[in-house]
């Protein structure tokens, strides 16, 4: 922290430029006050007036430093992005199919370029031909290469990433200077940062307060003059600066930049600050089931109907799955080994060498299995297929198994029946493997937290209603949309919005694009299509749909930090009045010394202490502004109570202590009256 503060000293001075300071009305008033005080101190030098002048400049510098530190954190990331953006020569395909070499910055929308192994993709675009592995670590920081191919939902490529293998033809989709990387650089540097709606509203309130205090302070002079003694202008400026909400005025833009930065640190890029604020307001979260709530593939969770004593079912299920490399198959092997004591460590290859023959799953037979050397045949698969296989050999499905199958189906799971035929005897159904969508651990707790924050979660799935209901219940979401089409999704979003709710969702496919655009917070996966990325207002570089929950928390934290520091800033004024007002008028009305409850040593030390406190508190709160206030998910009522206590009551008390302590030091200063 200290080092980053030292690093920004030059920038803090550079930001003294009035054109920059003017962007924050509160700090601009301090700036004008500093200029005036300095002029007065030159004309009429005294320890007091010079001290005030120096500390007023310090106030402005601290405000600038806060902003510079916040911006500085994005600079490092911007630098690494810039490195990726280094000038590349592109191999542009002319209409006649002949390649020509042009600088990457000359490419425009619609140009087609060829990129081969080891080359850097010169601009954002869509693959129109070929398939390649691409290293996207320049953007995502993730070193594992990803596959990009023409057509489908994985055709988007980003300029600055490197092709690791094969050859692709890319059609450029953005203008030079507006590429994804360009926008990222601008975002993390805060260069094109525009004030968000909420920030503007707060600025209006702070400006109004500043005007009120300006009038209050200007009215003091005629009142004081009537009462018998005018006040030195330096004193009035000092009072004004102490009263106007400098703390929040100085930290406001740092809070905004830091909020965006927190998102960037989690590899999320918000296309606008507006979206980050909206994230805090979200009251409905639409979450895709697959990949977000569940692991995305069905897993075996139990083996039912077998005789536990002989382990026959587990052994059969194990053997029939050995050659099955699907996640379902692997999960059966894992389950049989760990939960049912089957002897693990065997492999399909070894068994194959011994003469076993594996039957692969096909859409026709809907079964897979194995024929062992000793004539034992094992099959597992869909109920109807296995039933047919069993009956073919003269056997029949026991009703016990049928009951289990129905039970699993109605709970939303998928039953796989395992049957075995030894030699030429009748085939027997041994039992059922229960496959189900497994909810990621911890989801229920996260949804409980969401509910406590007043956010409704809706699970979106292509499953039928029965399956969806079962998973929704298990995961603890509030509602679900089953057999959802993109149109259904859109309709749901509109319905929620008409009810006054803000909706957040994630998506990656082109068919998600309209819904992403309609949602108030649309988070596109970086692995998704460029249509999805254009439509959303945030991009998650890690392509992790659960991150939506973190995004909401960051949005809330941003707003809470602003509110907390505003409250703190205003609450501070009470103590400053008790320091300055008696100090100003004690010469006129000695009785006002009763208001000097801090027992500050002299009028001048009291005023100077208040000004110093006012400046130092900005410095002290920079870490808080950058980090954001601690956020614990809880109801609004609890949060309000806690934050009011800490920042409201704390804001009243802290300056009384701070000013008193500063006064103890300042009163030692020689030359103060």
């Amino acid at each position, binding site marked *: 922290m200290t080092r980053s503060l030292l690093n920004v000293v030059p920038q803090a001075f550079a930001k003294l430029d009035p054109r920059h300071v003017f962007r924050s009305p509160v700090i601009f008033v301090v700036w004008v006050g500093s200029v005036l005080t300095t002029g007065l101190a030159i004309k009429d030098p005294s320890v007091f007036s010079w001290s005030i002048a120096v500390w007023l400049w310090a106030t402005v510098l601290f405000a600038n430093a806060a902003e510079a530190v916040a911006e500085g954190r994005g600079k490092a990331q911007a630098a690494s992005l810039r490195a990726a953006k280094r000038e590349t020569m592109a191999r542009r395909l002319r209409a006649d199919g002949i390649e020509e070499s042009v600088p990457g910055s000359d490419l425009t929308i619609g140009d087609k370029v060829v990129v081969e192994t080891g080359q850097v993709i010169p601009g954002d675009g869509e693959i129109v031909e070929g398939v390649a592995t691409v290293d996207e670590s320049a953007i995502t920081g993730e070193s594992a290469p990803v596959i990009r191919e023409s057509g489908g939902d994985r055709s988007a490529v980003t300029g600055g990433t490197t092709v690791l293998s094969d050859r692709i033809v890319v059609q450029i989709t953005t203008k030079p200077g507006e590429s994804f990387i360009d926008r990222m650089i601008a975002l993390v540097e805060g260069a094109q940062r525009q004030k968000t*709606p*909420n920030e*503007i*509203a*707060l600025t*209006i*309130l702070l400006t*109004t*307060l500043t*005007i*009120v205090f300006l*009038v*209050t302070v200007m*009215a*003091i*002079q*005629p*009142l004081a*003059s*009537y*009462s018998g003694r005018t006040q030195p202008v330096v004193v009035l400026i000092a009072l004004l600066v102490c009263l106007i909400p400098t703390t929040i005025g100085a930290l406001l833009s740092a809070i905004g930049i830091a909020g965006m930065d927190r998102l960037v640190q989690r590899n999320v890029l918000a296309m606008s600050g507006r979206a980050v*604020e909206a994230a*805090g307001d979200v*009251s409905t979260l639409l979450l895709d089931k697959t990949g977000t709530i569940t692991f995305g593939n069905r897993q075996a969770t139990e083996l039912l109907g077998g005789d536990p004593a002989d382990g026959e079912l587990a052994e059969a299920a194990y053997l029939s799955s050995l050659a099955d490399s699907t996640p379902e198959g692997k999960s059966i092997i894992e389950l049989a080994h760990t939960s049912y004591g089957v002897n693990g460590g065997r492999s399909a290859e070894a068994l194959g060498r011994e003469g076993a023959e594996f039957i692969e799953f096909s859409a026709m037979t809907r079964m897979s299995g194995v024929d062992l050397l000793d004539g034992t045949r094992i099959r597992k698969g869909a109920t109807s297929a296995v039933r047919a296989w069993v009956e073919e050999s003269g056997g029949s499905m026991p009703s016990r198994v049928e009951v289990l199958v129905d039970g699993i189906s109605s709970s939303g799971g998928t039953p796989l029946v395992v049957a075995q035929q030894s030699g030429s005897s009748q085939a027997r159904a041994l039992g059922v493997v229960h496959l189900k969508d497994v909810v990621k651990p911890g989801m229920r707790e996260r949804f409980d937290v969401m509910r*406590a*924050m*007043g*956010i*409704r979660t809706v699970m979106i799935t292509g499953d039928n209603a029965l399956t969806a209901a079962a998973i929704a219940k298990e995961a603890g979401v509030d509602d679900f949309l089953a057999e959802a089409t993109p149109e259904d999704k859109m309709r749901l979003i509109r319905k929620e919005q008409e009810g*006054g*709710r803000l909706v957040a969702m994630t998506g990656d496919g082109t068919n998600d694009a309209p819904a992403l655009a309609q949602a108030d917070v649309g988070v596109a996966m970086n692995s998704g299509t460029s249509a999805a990325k254009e439509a959303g207002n945030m991009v998650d570089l890690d392509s992790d749909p659960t991150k939506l929950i973190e995004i909401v928390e960051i*949005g*809330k*934290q941003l*707003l*809470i930090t*602003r*509110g*907390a520091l*505003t*409250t703190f800033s205003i609450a501070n*004024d*009470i103590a400053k*009045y008790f320091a300055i007002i008696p100090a*100003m*008028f004690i010469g*006129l*009305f000695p*009785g*006002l010394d*009763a*208001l000097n409850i801090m027992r500050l040593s002299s009028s001048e030390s009291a005023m100077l202490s208040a000004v110093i406190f006012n400046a130092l508190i900005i410095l002290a709160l920079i870490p808080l502004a950058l980090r954001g206030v601690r956020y614990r998910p809880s109801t*609004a*009522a609890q*949060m*309000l*109570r806690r934050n*009011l206590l800490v*920042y*409201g009551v704390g804001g009243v008390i802290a300056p009384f202590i701070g000013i008193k302590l500063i006064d103890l030091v300042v009163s030692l200063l020689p030359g103060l009256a």
Partner: protein
Amino acid sequence: MSETLSGLLTIGLLVLLLALCYHPVGAWMAKVFTDTRHWRAEKAIYRLVRVDPDSEQGWRAYATSVVAFSVLGIAALFALIVAQTHLPGRQGSDGMGVTTAINTAVSFVTNTNWQSYAGEAGATPLVQTVGLTVQNFVSAAVGLAVAVALIRALARHSASAIGNFWVDLVRGVVRVLLPGSVLAAVLLLAGGVIQNLSAPLTIHGFSGVEQVIRGGLVASQEAIKELGTNGGGYFNANSAHPFENPNPLTNIFEIFLLLVIPFALTRTYGIMVGDRRQGWALGGFAGLLWAGGVALTTWAEVHASGASTGAMEGKEQRFGVWGSTLFAASTTSTSTGAVNSMHESYSPLGGGAVLANMVLGEVSPGGVGSGLYGIVIVALLAVFVAGLMVGRTPEYLGKTIGRREVTCAALYILVMPVLVLVFAGISLASDGPRSTMSASGPHGLTEVLYAYASAANNNGSAFAGLTADTPWYNLTLAICMLLGRFIPMLLVLRLAGLLVEQRKRPVTVGTMPTHTPLFVGLVTGIALVVAGLTFFPALALGPIAEALS
């Protein structure tokens, strides 16, 4: 019975009366302003002024109607006052100068009722009844209408209409203020307030001095003076005059009258927005501040130095300290401005307390209508500052407080302090205005500050001591009254226009609750801090300096 006990019993009786009327009066007003049918008398009025009572207005049309009606009212009243000495029924009245007439016309139309003239001498019975009393009714009804328009904007969603000003105005007069004042006038009459049309009576006192005793339609004007939080007395001595306020019982009743509508409106609010707890919260906020004001004023006067029985200077024997301070705190916290004791003579702290009541912005509970919308504005500011702390864009009753809404609320808060401080500053810095002050030092500063605070807040009570019937004070105070009334009103209507268009966001546990004691405390804190920070230096040089010297 000790003074303290009787004082506490007086307050207890008053609170009991208010509590009894809170529900029925509030519910009645809610019914009045949501009723779809029109009374026959009202239909006649609508036909006369050619208004379609079933069509509603957007905020622009509503605001235009408010301004047009009020400008017309000022012009008509001004003309009547200027012409009064040439009209019948003069009864020896001296009439008013032009600036006094302007001041008076503005004063009564803005529901301020600052009186630069001596009540019985400056205005003829004709002006009092046809001009001033009429404005007593309609100016209060205008405030009521604007408040109701704001409530509708909060209650409705995705709409543009906020009601029909003419209907709200007529109903406010016909269904609320008229029946209320008739009832009140009868009770005041029974209590001994006079009501006659006899000629002035000349009597000779013990010392041989000739005295002219005027009568008049006092009880009827007294009723609406309090009920409409107007405050313009029939007599110069206002409610200290035995013909206006003869005994402790009429005193309690008059205090009740000036508090009843502003408090009951919070009930109306709760009913109309569909959540009674919201009304309770606003009422609780106003009650808390009112109780604080009463406590502080009473404590200051009872403990005023140099008097074993408390500070009786400027107070009526028949009301005592408690009956006077209760009246003073209530009249200054309702923007009424009627007085039953001379605030100038209060102890420095007591005088400062009634002044502080006004610079709070008349929200405890404020004037008829104007109090309620003032309270809502403070609540909106509290929601904006603290609402961010729950991690959402601030919202109140499901309506988002965004850039434009906050601008309206912030400008509303800006108007009054600017008017008071700028004009008080100029007056104290100029020789002319300073020469008409009766006191010097901090007390004189309080006199001037009080005058502008009273005008800009549309209170109308005078600290006395200041000779305000000069062109400077008449005109600057008129400006304060005019801007202090209509700029906030227009901002409130603009705000209503913004709010009514919004959708309503559903209430969840993530929504900041605005009906809890915590929220009431928060709004109280915001009101005190905003007013305190703005006026602390001025108060420090006035009443506080005086009290501590």
